[in-house]
């Protein structure tokens, strides 16, 4: 029985941990690293060293803020995150998760309260209910104490424990339901399809930045670039998807470079604010067919 209890507790802890830390990582992909060039740049350019230094400082500041918020529970909600920094966004997501979990935990505890709310008796505290529970428990314990000597108390205790574990399981399930439900709702919200107007706006914006050469205009190719953009639209990284062709084909290489310049030059991108999460990883497919018209 002790074993099974430990297994039960272990599993509970495991699944709670999965719910806490595991699930969000499925949804939120780690942003791609900046190209090595910038690291090299730091060795030479003092200005870029400063630039690189700034984000770390900001991260530290944010960390301090988070600690303060954790200590002072009753303080008003934290200011909206600085959208330009991916780390800030991460931390805020974590904060939100923690808060949600806390709120969920409170909701679970406040089940009777919700009933009271329904009856429009908000002022009725659950303190009144708790003593009753305690009294009942005390009575039960007293009774058990008596019964222990008379009958085998174990089954009764087990039933309680089973009930408790069932209640706990229900709680865990409820938590999970809420977490999974929330994430799925969140994902549905963020993954809402972009409208044609939003796509056209972005497309036109990039088109204006794409300065390409007439080059081998008889070659009609599509060059996919993998982009990672921050919530504020600033471009985090640009990767040329087909590296093998990039190395072999001179026209592909030159045009892919021009496309990369276009994306970097156009940063920050005009991303729709409520759908910016979709742009953590996406593709621009640069089509050279139009060059043929010249």
């Amino acid at each position, binding site marked *: 029985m002790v074993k099974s209890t430990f297994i*039960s507790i272990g599993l509970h802890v495991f699944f709670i941990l999965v719910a806490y830390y595991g699930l969000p990582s499925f949804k939120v992909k780690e942003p791609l690293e900046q190209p090595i060039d910038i690291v090299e740049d730091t060795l030479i350019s003092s200005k870029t060293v400063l630039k690189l230094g700034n984000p770390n400082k900001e991260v530290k500041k944010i960390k301090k803020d988070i600690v303060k918020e954790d200590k002072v529970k009753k303080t008003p909600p934290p200011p909206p995150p600085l959208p330009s920094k991916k780390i800030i966004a991460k931390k805020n997501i974590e904060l939100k998760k923690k808060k949600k979990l806390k709120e969920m935990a409170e909701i679970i505890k406040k089940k009777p309260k919700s009933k009271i709310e329904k009856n429009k008796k908000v002022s009725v505290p659950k303190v009144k209910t708790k003593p009753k529970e305690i009294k009942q428990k005390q009575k039960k314990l007293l009774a058990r104490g008596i019964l222990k000597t008379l009958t085998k108390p174990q089954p009764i205790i087990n039933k309680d424990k089973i009930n408790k574990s069932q209640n706990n399981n229900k709680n865990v399930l409820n938590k999970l339901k809420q977490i999974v439900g929330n994430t799925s709702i969140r994902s549905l919200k963020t993954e809402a399809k972009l409208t044609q107007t939003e796509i056209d706006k972005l497309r036109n914006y990039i088109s204006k930045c794409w300065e390409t*050469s007439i080059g081998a205009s008889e070659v009609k190719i599509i060059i996919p670039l993998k982009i990672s953009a921050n919530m504020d639209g600033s471009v985090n990284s640009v990767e040329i998807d087909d590296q093998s062709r990039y190395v072999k084909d001179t026209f592909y290489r030159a045009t892919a470079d021009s496309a990369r310049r276009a994306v970097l030059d156009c940063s920050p991108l005009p991303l729709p604010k409520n759908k910016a999460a979709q742009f953590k990883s996406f593709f*621009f497919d640069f089509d050279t067919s139009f060059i043929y018209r010249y």
Partner: protein
Amino acid sequence: MRFILNKNLKSLVLKILILIFPLLINQALAQDLRIKISSGQVEPLPIAIADFTGQEGKANEIGRKISEVISNNLVGSGQFKALESAAFIAPPTSPSVRPNFTDWSPLGVKALITGSVKSINNQQVEVEFRLWDVVAQTDLIGLRLIVDSKAWRRVAHIISDEIFQRLSGDSGYFDTRIVYVAESGPQNKRLKRLAIMDQDGENHQYLTDGSFLVLTPRFSPTTQEITYLAYFKNEPRVYIFNLETGQQELLGSFPGMTFAPRFSPSGDKIIMSLATKGITDIYTMNLNNQKVTRLTNNSSIDTSPSFSPDGKRVIFNSDRGGSQQIYIMDSKGNDVKRISFGKGRYATPVWAPKGDLIAFTKMLKNKFYIGVMSQDGSNERLLAEGYLVEGPTWAPNGRVLMYFKQDAPIDDGKSASVNLYKIDITGFRETRIITPSDGSDPAWSPLLPN
């Protein structure tokens, strides 16, 4: 009890898995957003060309000249726009030093070229360059050459070719030469000499002394040889001139008139038109055994033949349909089809080295035009016009055309000036090539061997 707990546990695990499963599936099936960009700006790319640095006076001077030639080449191609050096914020740096891109990006340039020149001894210099992507903050290509200090101009052309290829994807055409007919003297006593120069008009040289009339020089696509037509005692002869040895070889003396000899892509044949008994047809001559083969047999005038780059087809102009138009046939003279159907007359078709386009001369309403069309005759575009524009020749990369343009004659006994021009196939940038005297009938060489 264990059974109850286990059952309870199993159901819990099952429920959790049921809850998590759709989320995992959702994540697995989630596809990245894709947005197609199907338009852009085909405009000259803004670039900065810093003077090549040198350690002492001579190297500095060579460095400055090299960067000037590179700038002229790239801007002249119509695909680049060079920033004035007066606008530079930062001084020129060595190519081995990574530039501070924040000094260049505010100027709006997308690429930066840095270089250096070092004297190795009295004769040789080491020239190094590097091309930087200012936006992506990375280097794109670099090259180091050890050359004779007198060959700095050619080094500049080689570097220009490397930069052009890296930024446009096309092979360059700067390390090439032009052979043409240099003209001088009055209309009634015109002196026509064969001359050669770099594609930018520098290093000019005369190949013949003008004692006999020369016409239609054409470069071999494989060797540094020229074929041309010369009138010796009023008899047309086809010669081959070897530029490396300076030797001339008489290919043959043909009865009647001979026109427009041109090499086949493999360089082992000459294709030309011969006029006999009032009929002009197209012939080929094998340079190995001098065997002549007739390709067309028609009562009309068939002339100006040009092989396709694969050597399997020939384009030419003919008046067999009533007006001068462009026709295509296979290399044996079969399957003749007309491809030009526009208004006016068409002449001197030349197949582009890549095979995608055909350049031609068009005559319409007392005006001449230089144009290009697809190999089936579609997508005709007229690039240049004038009183007389004629004789298009392709740069080896097929992106630039050269031709000659003659002004309207003036009634003062003097000949109207004739000059060479080049234009990129977008048609936006026409540049005159400065020559010591008038020039006509240009022919572009392939890239020079290193």
